[in-house]
């Protein structure tokens, strides 16, 4: 028997997240996020539905918990994982993802006469592809699953490729980048879910009773 706390932590995280719901929701988030950016970068001229995204984002955590209570916890039990957001993650991932749409909006509104905004819009997929490396590294570190580094490579390569290609309008590139990324994550999560219900086909009888 070996006691390696880092490995136990990773194993615990992997075990608790094996239902695939986090990846499923991340996939949906990416598609919505790409659409919102596309709409903003196009100065709100597209028909992409922003309102459902706001609801999705606002209620995503609560919805995930409701689904897990019905599907996941009865099968494998429940643990409250220590979710600490490391400072580097906040600065390198959360802030750029949160601020980029706002920065683009302000730039388009007030500085489009001064700066070459088209260049910024064209290369935003490459920039975001690099930002997502941090997200996937965090996931790999928490789960111990190095497959997430494959997603990191995919995000950089696809970000650069999409940025090199020409789209009309230019802003479409950001949606073209996030749509397959979100799709792949969604399918990955779906595969995990299918594997999960095959491994644990039926919920356990309620044994959470202290004897």
């Amino acid at each position, binding site marked *: *028997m070996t*006691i390696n*706390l880092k490995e*136990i*932590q990773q*194993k*615990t995280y992997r*075990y*608790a997240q094996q239902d695939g719901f986090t990846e499923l929701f991340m996939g949906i988030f990416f598609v919505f996020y790409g659409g919102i950016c596309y709409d903003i970068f196009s100065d709100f001229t597209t028909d992409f539905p922003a309102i459902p995204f706001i609801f999705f984002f606002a209620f995503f955590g609560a919805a995930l918990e409701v689904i897990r*209570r019905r599907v996941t*916890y009865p099968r*494998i*039990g*429940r*643990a*409250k*994982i*220590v979710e600490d957001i490391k400072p580097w993650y906040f600065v390198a991932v959360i802030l750029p993802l949160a601020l980029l749409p706002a920065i683009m909006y302000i730039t388009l509104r007030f500085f489009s006469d001064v700066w070459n905004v088209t260049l910024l819009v064209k290369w935003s997929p490459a920039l975001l592809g690099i930002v997502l490396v941090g997200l996937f590294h965090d996931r790999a570190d928490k789960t111990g699953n190095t497959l997430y580094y494959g997603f990191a490579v995919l995000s950089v390569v696809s970000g650069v490729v999409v940025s090199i290609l020409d789209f009309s309008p230019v802003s479409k590139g950001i949606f073209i980048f996030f749509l397959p990324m979100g799709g792949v994550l969604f399918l990955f999560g779906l595969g995990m879910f299918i594997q999960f219900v095959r491994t644990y086909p039926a919920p*356990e009888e*309620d*044994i*959470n*009773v*202290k*004897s």
Partner: protein
Amino acid sequence: MSKAEPDELQPIADIDKLIHEPARLLVLAHLYVVESADFLFLMRQTGLTGGNLSSHMSKLEEAGYIAVEKEFVGKKPHTMLRLTNEGRKAFKEYVQSMKQVFNGLSER
């Protein structure tokens, strides 16, 4: 052969015997890395049987190392276990004790 000095044996004597039992060590290690966990989760993660886990839980709870909290999930009662501050401190001290025991042990 020289006898070991009493000071050299102190780290071994200081080992917390409650934690030193393999199954309880496993339970505490798993609780150390989470905020809390329920019985089913711990059972699956540690590989212990329900009865075995329950017995060790009782000992750890008696010692004040773990807290058992009942909450309601919908209308069903649900039991969550977590390491107390005392339990966390005791676990860290146990890890330190074990490191001291093997510190400086030469390879043969």
